[in-house]
């Protein structure tokens, strides 16, 4: 467990909060796509930690950032974290996204709060000069975030919404096709929607692209010992907290 100090914790609309935490140890170790388990309160109500993707991090500043959706008792309590509060963090845990040696162009597909999982990867890719095509999907514009954090000369951000139909499978497929045609996609990373995962898998399969998906499951230990957080894969039940959250698309949809 690591102690972190809240630097900021504010609503960013759409039912999301953005929290910045100072925690040099986690910032030092964190890799794109890994998760951190927050203890929202001492005592037994709630009993378990809550897992969150690290949305962004700054290794020099020693900070990590989260975007979280208010869902229930735990995230309700997180809302009341104030700058200066000390919080109890466990992590980072789990497998990260890995950029392929020599990758030139990647696609990021995120939906809803799942977007939080892929933003730091986009930033890392851009840092390395890799072209990033990001498709950020949500019910409506308020439900999409992270576009700004991705801003870079080599990155294109497509925001697609349910309310105007742009988040439809056909439209997302169109963006993927265009991206592929404009020069081959080396890797696809997806998080936040089964439908998008399936779509990414089908597309990646068709074009022989390496693809990864980040999954969610309810957790208890967060470190791989209890086996409650499993998802079904071609290799059998694997733990999301340790074997995942990032899995090859083919293991999940294959």
């Amino acid at each position, binding site marked *: 467990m690591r102690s972190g100090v809240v630097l900021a914790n504010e609503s960013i609309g759409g039912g999301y909060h953005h929290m910045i935490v100072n925690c040099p140890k986690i910032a030092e170790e964190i890799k794109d796509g890994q998760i951190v388990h927050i203890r929202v309160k001492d005592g037994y109500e709630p009993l378990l*930690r809550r897992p969150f993707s690290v949305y962004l991090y700054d290794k020099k500043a020693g900070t990590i950032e989260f975007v979280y959706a208010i869902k229930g008792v735990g995230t309700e309590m997180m809302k009341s974290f104030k700058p200066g509060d000390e919080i109890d963090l466990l992590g980072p845990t789990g497998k990260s996204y890995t950029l392929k040696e020599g990758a030139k162009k990647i696609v990021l597909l995120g939906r809803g709060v799942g977007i939080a999982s892929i933003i730091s990867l986009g930033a890392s890719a851009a840092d390395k000069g890799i072209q990033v095509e990001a498709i950020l999907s949500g019910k409506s514009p308020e439900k999409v975030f992270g576009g700004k954090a991705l801003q870079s000369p080599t990155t294109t951000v497509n925001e697609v919404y349910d309310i105007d139909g742009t988040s439809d499978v056909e439209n997302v497929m169109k963006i993927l096709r265009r991206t592929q045609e404009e020069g081959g996609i080396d890797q696809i990373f997806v998080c936040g929607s089964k439908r998008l995962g399936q779509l990414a898998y089908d597309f990646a399969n068709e074009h022989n692209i390496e693809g990864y998906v980040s999954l969610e499951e309810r957790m208890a230990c967060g470190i*791989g010992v209890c086996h*409650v957080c499993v998802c079904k894969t071609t290799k059998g039940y694997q733990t999301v907290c340790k074997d995942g959250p990032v899995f090859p698309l083919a293991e999940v949809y294959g």
Partner: protein
Amino acid sequence: MMERISLKVNIGGVELKNPVMPASGTFGVESADYLDCRKLGAILPKSFTLNPQQGNPPPRVVETSCGMLNAVGIQNKGLEYFINVTLPFFETFDTPVIASVSAYSEEDFKTIIRELNKTKTALIELNISCPNLKEGGKAFGTSAEETYKIVKAAKSVSEIPLITKLSPNVTDITEIALAAESAGSDAVSLINTFLGMAIDINTMRPKLGNITGGLSGPAIKPLALRMVWQVAQKVKIPVIGIGGIASGADAIEFLLAGATAVQIGTSSFAEPNIMERIISEIEDYMREKNISDIHEIIGGLKIG
């Protein structure tokens, strides 16, 4: 002021440096990154079966009021993996390793134990009480006769002292404990989880893939403590107390009720190094009360 305090206890001839150890299913090789295994009374990795098994379909966990339901169904990599990977890993610490064994028949128990006889396993815990298996575990642990038979069979081949882990889902747990004792068990541990359930009112479906699951955590502590107290009065072999322990004070309650050692499960999830804290809280209590030997606490409950 006070002489050095001793937390040493003995289970089936094996000396533990203190009475605190993990509960099966809540501790694994990964745990070693979060606490110092040398400080524990014993190391007790997850139950394994003869052959690898996949466990139950997800979801496998539901949080409840001050507790949780799990329905893992003993997903594990089997005996061979335990012997070749888990055991060697934990043998590097200077702490006895307890093998938690699950099986579906007397024969399987015997086969596993014969293989463990060849290893440096310090103690074997017979898990005849997992509520998340349709057959096997449950049937054995909820009947005194079945318990007697399975323990007797296990004992007949075991060169390693045996702990029998009891189910709380019974009318009279002392009966089962006595059956285990008379079949030759060297200790009993209790309790395994309570069978429970939760329903999602929106989908109108069970929240667990397995429909029912085992309740653990602070919610069940009063029930576990009562059972430990009842059993400790009846058996002569050591009792290991389990259920909802989340502090030194909780552990001391179990020791006072007659437990020689305690296991910590669910509360390690929120606080992976909680066992180290519990050990030092027990020490603090002993110092404060001027108790130099933990045996002065064990069974020390005053009544009347």
